[in-house]
């Protein structure tokens, strides 16, 4: 590894992040720190994947990340959509996850009552 | 001594060594800073926080015990704040401490009690409630009692056990307020690996750890203390005897040159025999097969008459005498002088014949001097120590601590070569398990590797030695492959051991009877010497060839001429000039032939050529090989005199038994295994009716017409100095606590002798390489006697058990005979733990309890030789090394069956 290789790798990564948004309209990122998991994030992640598979949705990927710090709102899920502000959902459970897939991913409707109101 | 720097404590300027311990420095300068966890023999903990001081430039308060002195330090040791905190800490300690001071063993000698007094802390003025619930006292050890309620968790015992003794039996268990000192995995003390050395007790500043045998015996203020030398093994530990009247209350380790205050279980707890009722206090004469008490005059006259008669009838050659490795140098000098000058024979020997005769012979040939080349405390600083044929932990426990220190504190590499999985194996980098009696082979194998890999010290070989070519030619034949076949040691291990030892900056070899007690004992020793010379590991600090001598004064008994071939100071009896010198000094006609060795004496007695035997403080009826033969021989004697402190297995065959002094009662000197002559102090009064060994001999001699006029041990040593050059500079006045290490040839007060031998030049000039070929043991297992028998000592008993078996503390650790057999053998023969088994050799048979352990090799049996009721020496082989006449005690073939 040298600086040049690092630069290439960085640029490739940044490109891929963008490309990922090209191929997948949505990116669902679940906070999978211990706090999230302790509050049920694992079940939420599974629910997202199951629901997406069940519905046969193609243009969405589900990813994990660490914790954002909203302990009181765990599990926390962020939905990214190309060209839009990311939407942050809090206190998500498997049922709510299914609804997010149905409403937000499926129909493009942000589910406001899951949104973490703090911020933005 | 490091650089002197100036520091200031409470305004006073003090000069101190740079890097020295601040607390110690302050105390030495008269600042009585309190502190309970500081112990100068272990690393500082900084745990009790009493020695806190203020140091300019350092934040907060600092424990002075953890600080090293630096130039310009400015210290506040006492002010209101510090003293306030100290009082608070004492209050906290007292609130946790079971206050049973009035019944506490250490009352008036307790660190915490002193501080409570100093800071006026009492139960009544404690700011908090004292602890009311108490934990159970741990009293299961035979010798140590631990009261957790008195424990202040200073960690001194834990560190003493690990850092000093290298054992690590103790550790803190649990944490916080629940912390306590536990053994091993936290079970009962008695079930632990604790061997009762009591180093922990000595380290304890309060009464949490005390000597069980001493409980209730005396208050501190009734006790007086005197120092002398431990009566047991060849280490020569200095002891502090606490006594009330003429009774020993306890023994502590004192700061002697060989032990630094360390002791083993025998040294600390093995004194009870001293108060035993069966002590001999009057001469006994055998009449009609039974002993009767006699007056000294009657007994001595009888001996003088008998001896004169025998001398007249059979000549001087009919006498033989066993000097004693247990008696003082002075006793031994007078003994051999009596035998040589009064009786006219060189037939004087002693049990050194059975332990290190081959060492003396071998090292004399290789180096010119048959003693340990280096000193005990040097072991701690060797980079590599090769221990072979020495179960050091049990036979020389305090020396073992320095070996362990080398490994644990300084990262030394330890190589153990031993057929048994001895304790030191735990500390070893490498353990080579050879077949009994194959030592020349593996030693040659190591040297083969060293030469082939270019690891030999060529400069040393060139400039300091001779005979290399012949030697190398023999070694060439001992390839690792061949050696593996002979010795059973995998060749990789031989190669690795060769590399480790040869590449060490300072390699030290330690050996003992596993090397010497073979028909090839002298060969073995020569091989060891070859190995040291090949790598240049002799004649310098922290290295050398170090035979560990077994008994407290076995070195001295040899030095003082208790041998058939030499006068005191290893002056040869066959040398006419030497003989002439002694004839002049002693004013007597002396024998010009080499006398009989121990085994030869027994043969002579059996054959009727030896008519009278004089035994001073030895017990051949347990210690000698092939006891059935010894017994028959003793019975054949016309006259047998035995001097001892107790009746023994040997005294029963005596015609006269003479009661003498014990070690604690003696004046005189012992010479320890590192050639150090140390002064004894008669700490106890001898019982009425007993006489010192040398006095008895002098009395008989005078009655026989050969006059000796010694009035004290000191006078005897003056004569020794006069006739024996290596003791030429040895004078009682000069010895002090440090003693001197022979050779010490000048009277100069600063001539303390020689720390390590053969610097620059060997005693014989050039070191001599001997070509040595492997010869198998005299007797090997066969169909009839399929197992390999070996014997040795154990930690808790000493030699023939005359003393130790009268000590209940030691008996609670190990009370009687047993035989170690392997789990494999036990299974084959369907033997369970503690089953009685019969062990038989061509010479005899014993019945003893089986102990199943993987210490011994699968087809081997090990029997400790201390126990007369199942005496290992009924089985051992008396085949001799042709040069040193040492019997092959370490190898015999035997059969085993369920009894």
């Amino acid at each position: 590894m040298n600086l040049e290789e690092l630069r290439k790798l960085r640029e490739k990564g940044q490109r891929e992040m963008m490309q990922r948004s090209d191929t997948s309209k949505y990116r669902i990122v679940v906070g999978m720190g211990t706090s999230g998991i302790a509050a049920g994030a694992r079940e939420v992640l599974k629910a997202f994947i199951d629901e997406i598979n069940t519905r046969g949705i193609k243009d969405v990927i589900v990813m994990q990340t660490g914790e954002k710090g909203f302990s009181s709102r765990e599990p926390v899920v962020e939905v990214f959509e190309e060209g839009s502000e990311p939407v942050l959902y809090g206190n998500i459970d498997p049922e709510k996850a299914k609804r997010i897939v149905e409403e937000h991913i499926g129909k493009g409707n942000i589910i406001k009552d899951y949104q973490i109101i703090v911020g933005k | 001594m490091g650089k002197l720097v100036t520091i200031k404590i409470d305004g006073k300027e003090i000069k101190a060594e740079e890097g020295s311990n601040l607390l110690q420095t302050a105390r030495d300068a008269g600042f009585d800073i309190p502190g309970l966890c500081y112990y100068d023999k272990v690393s500082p903990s900084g745990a009790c926080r009493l020695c806190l001081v203020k140091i300019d430039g350092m934040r907060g308060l600092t424990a002075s015990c953890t600080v090293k002195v630096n130039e310009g330090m400015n210290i506040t040791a006492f002010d209101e704040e510090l003293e306030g905190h100290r009082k608070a800490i004492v209050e906290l300690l007292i609130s946790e401490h079971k206050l049973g001071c009035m019944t506490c063993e250490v009352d008036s000698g307790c660190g915490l009690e002193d501080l409570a007094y100093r800071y006026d802390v009492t139960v009544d003025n404690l700011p908090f409630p004292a602890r009311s619930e108490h934990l159970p006292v741990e009293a299961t050890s035979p010798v140590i009692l631990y009261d957790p309620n008195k424990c202040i968790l200073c960690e001194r015992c834990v560190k003493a056990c690990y850092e000093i003794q290298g054992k690590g039996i103790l550790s803190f268990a649990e944490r916080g307020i629940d912390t306590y000192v536990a053994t091993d995995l936290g079970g009962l003390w008695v079930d632990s690996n604790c061997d009762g050395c009591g180093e922990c007790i000595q380290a304890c500043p309060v009464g949490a750890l005390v000597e069980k045998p001493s409980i209730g015996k005396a208050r501190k203020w009734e006790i007086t203390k005197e120092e002398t030398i431990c009566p047991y093994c060849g280490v020569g530990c200095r002891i502090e005897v606490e006594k009330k009247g003429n009774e020993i209350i306890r023994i502590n380790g004192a700061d002697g040159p060989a032990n630094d205050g360390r002791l083993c279980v025998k040294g600390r707890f093995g004194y009870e025999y001293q108060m035993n009722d069966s002590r001999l206090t009057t001469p006994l004469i055998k009449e009609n097969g039974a002993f009767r008490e006699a007056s000294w005059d009657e007994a001595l006259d009888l001996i003088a008459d008998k001896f004169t008669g025998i001398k007249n009838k059979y000549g001087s050659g009919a006498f033989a005498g066993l000097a004693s490795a247990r008696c003082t140098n002075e006793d031994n000098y007078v003994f051999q002088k009596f035998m040589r000058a009064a009786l006219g024979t060189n037939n004087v020997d002693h049990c050194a014949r059975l332990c290190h005769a081959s060492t003396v012979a071998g090292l004399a040939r290789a180096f010119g001097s048959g003693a340990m080349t280096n000193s005990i405390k040097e072991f701690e600083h060797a980079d590599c120590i090769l221990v072979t044929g020495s179960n050091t932990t049990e036979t020389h426990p305090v020396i073992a601590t320095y070996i362990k220190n080398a490994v644990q504190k300084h990262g030394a590499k330890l190589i153990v070569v031993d057929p048994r999985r001895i304790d030191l194996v735990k500390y070893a980098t490498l353990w080579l398990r050879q077949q009994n009696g194959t030592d020349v082979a593996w030693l040659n194998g190591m040297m083969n590797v060293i030469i082939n890999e270019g690891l030999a010290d060529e400069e040393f070989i060139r400039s300091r030695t001779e005979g290399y070519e012949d030697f190398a030619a023999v070694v060439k034949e001992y390839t690792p492959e061949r050696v593996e076949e002979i010795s059973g040691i995998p060749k990789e291990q031989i190669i690795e051991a060769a590399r480790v030892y040869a590449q060490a900056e300072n390699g030290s070899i330690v050996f003992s009877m596993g090397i010497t007690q073979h028909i090839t004992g002298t060969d073995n020793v020569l091989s060891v010497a070859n190995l040291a010379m090949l790598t240049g590991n002799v004649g310098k600090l922290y290295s050398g060839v170090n035979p560990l001598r077994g008994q407290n004064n076995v070195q001295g008994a040899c030095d003082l001429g208790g041998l058939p071939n030499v006068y005191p100071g290893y002056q040869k009896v066959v040398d006419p000039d030497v003989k002439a010198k002694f004839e002049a000094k002693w004013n007597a006609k002396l024998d010009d032939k080499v006398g009989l060795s121990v085994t030869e004496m027994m043969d002579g007695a059996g054959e009727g050529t030896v008519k009278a035997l004089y035994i001073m403080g030895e017990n051949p009826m347990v210690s000698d090989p092939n006891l059935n033969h010894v017994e028959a021989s003793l019975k054949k004697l016309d006259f047998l005199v035995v001097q001892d402190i107790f009746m023994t297995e040997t005294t029963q065959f005596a015609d006269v038994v003479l009661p003498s002094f014990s070690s604690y009662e003696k004046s005189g000197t012992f010479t320890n295994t590192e050639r150090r002559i140390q002064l004894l102090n008669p700490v106890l009064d001898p019982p009425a009716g007993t006489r010192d060994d040398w006095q008895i001999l002098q009395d008989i001699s005078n009655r026989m017409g050969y006059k000796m006029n010694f009035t004290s041990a000191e006078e005897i040593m003056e004569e020794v100095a006069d006739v024996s050059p290596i003791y030429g500079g040895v004078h009682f006045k000069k010895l002090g606590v440090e003693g001197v290490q022979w050779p010490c040839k000048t009277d100069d007060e600063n001539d303390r002798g020689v720390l390590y031998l053969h610097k620059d030049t060997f005693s014989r000039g050039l070191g001599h390489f001997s070509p040595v070929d492997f010869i198998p043991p005299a007797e090997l297992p066969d169909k009839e006697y399929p197992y390999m028998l070996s014997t040795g000592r154990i930690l808790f008993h000493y030699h023939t058990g005359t003393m130790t078996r009268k000590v209940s503390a030691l008996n609670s650790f190990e009370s009687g005979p047993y035989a170690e057999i392997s789990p494999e053998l036990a299974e084959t023969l369907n033997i369970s733990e503690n089953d009685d088994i019969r062990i038989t050799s061509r010479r005899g048979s014993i019945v003893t309890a089986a102990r199943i352990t993987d210490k011994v090799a699968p087809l081997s049996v090990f029997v400790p030789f201390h126990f007369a009721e199942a005496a290992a020496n009924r089985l051992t082989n008396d085949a001799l090394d042709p040069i040193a006449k040492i019997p092959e005690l370490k190898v015999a073939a035997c059969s085993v069956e369920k009894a």
Partner: protein
Amino acid sequence: MATVPKLDVLICGGASCISNHSHDIKDKIFEELKKNGIEDEVRVIETGCMGPCELGPVMLVYPDKVFYQRLKPSDIETIVSDHFVKGRPVEEKVLVSETTRAIIEKGQQDTDFFKKQTKVVLSNCGRIDPENIEEYISENGYAALGSVLTSSTPDEVVETIKKSGLRGRGGGGFPTGRKWEFVKNTTNDQKYVVCNADEGDPGAFMDRSVLEGDPHCIIEGMSIAAYTVGANKGYVYIRAEYPLAIKRLEHAIEEAREYGFLGENIFETDFSFDLEIRIGAGAFVCGEETALIASIEGERGNPRPRPPFPAISGLWGKPTLLNNVETYANIRHIILKGWEWYASIGTETSKGTKVFALSGKIKNTGLIEVPMGTTLRELIFDIGGGVPDGKKFKAVQLGGPSGGCVPEEYLDTPIDYETLIELGAMMGSGGVIVMDEDTCMVNTARFFLDFTKSESCGKCVPCRVGLVQLHALLDKIVKGNGELEDLDKLEKLCYSVKKTSLCGLGQTAPNPVLSTLRYFKDEYLEHIQDHRCRAKVCTNLVTYTIVEDACRSCGICAKNCPVDCISGEKGVPYVINQDICISCGTCYDVCPFDAITTES
């Protein structure tokens, strides 16, 4: 793309409101919004418990600041049509009181959550996939290491870190650059860098969060440190209670080795460095640096005396650089953005940002990162949303068991290392534990001492025995047996324990006692003199009585009383026999009519 809603409707999702069917109300609202076609204009949010459970279900409407109480689904149609559509609140369901005003105020503050934060250490946490090194690289990962290795001397790095003003984030606040310089200046062929991931204070969990969410930033920070001080080996000591953090870091180390950021000749330079994880096994004291070293060596976590300091003689007696997770996490940012940028954040003495863990009686629990110098009030109220359930703020505990409790009047103090010490607290790892009026400060002090005494390693006398005695004194007071002179004893012993203990645990363990004695002495006096616990926590000091008027003689209290001290019969109010009562509070909890009162 969402339009900005005109109204925010906060429906209480507390357990009590849910049990009163607040979900039905929420559903009904959605239904009505849809019916009225204004679902885009109204944002409905379910919140945590708002506090006044007895009024539930409750609902807040912003920006109108209207508080609805005791809602039923049938109320919703009118509220939506009149209020949401026409802007006329439905007065008969609205409650205006002290409490509701406070709740409304607090809800407002929710929106302040982000405004005051500056994310440096946490910048990647919750954004990137911690198990994918390429995502870290995309965020400029390992660029700082690359730049340092290829274009800076160790001296220059030390200089940069020194000028940045970064101080140790693990508690003491020792200047990081100076520490690095010490270790760099020692001459020894073997040096180590160690990361203390044994999370300092209970109540602080930013280290875990960083390790789980952005493990590579620690590897990078440690590598830069190793290069600077001349070490080739590093250890991260993580508590075994953090299995996920261990797993993520293990994975990250593997990745870093694979990509050549750990190992031989990193960035094609002479610098080689590798990292190993060491795990604890449940001992708080191992967060202390010398205890941590002992633990890495495989021993009991007993602290060792200092001097010698680890910088001179640490792990296996070798010079050792020890920093905590958050400190290392800052390094790459300082290298990349320059010390000037870092030093521009914060106060005169304390630079950069600090991560705080908000917990206890605070609405928005979690991790936040703010510039040094932010006030406690901003932390607790603007960002943390204040105390939930309408309770009154009493104190904030900073620095965990090593820290102190700070009362309301000091909340406007800007936070830095020095100001907190002056207040009798300390920065510690950044644990912020909020306490409300239901917290008894004496009992809290006792709790902390209970904690520290059971975590004391037992090596030194003042900590081992002193904490037990301090705890015993507090216990005595809490149980109503305190005497006035106990306060002097407490203070004196606290002082001695602080000054004489071997390590940080003992030296700081008395802080919770000292700070509560300083700010809440009246509570101590009440316990001792009046046998009163105003928070009604200290059971020995609390008397339960049954209010005759409220009692419906249902007998539930008597049935549940563990000592059978409540008697009564149908139609007659029940009575508690105070001689037998053990003040366990069971009756209080089970009474369906709130007929039992507590007095102290």
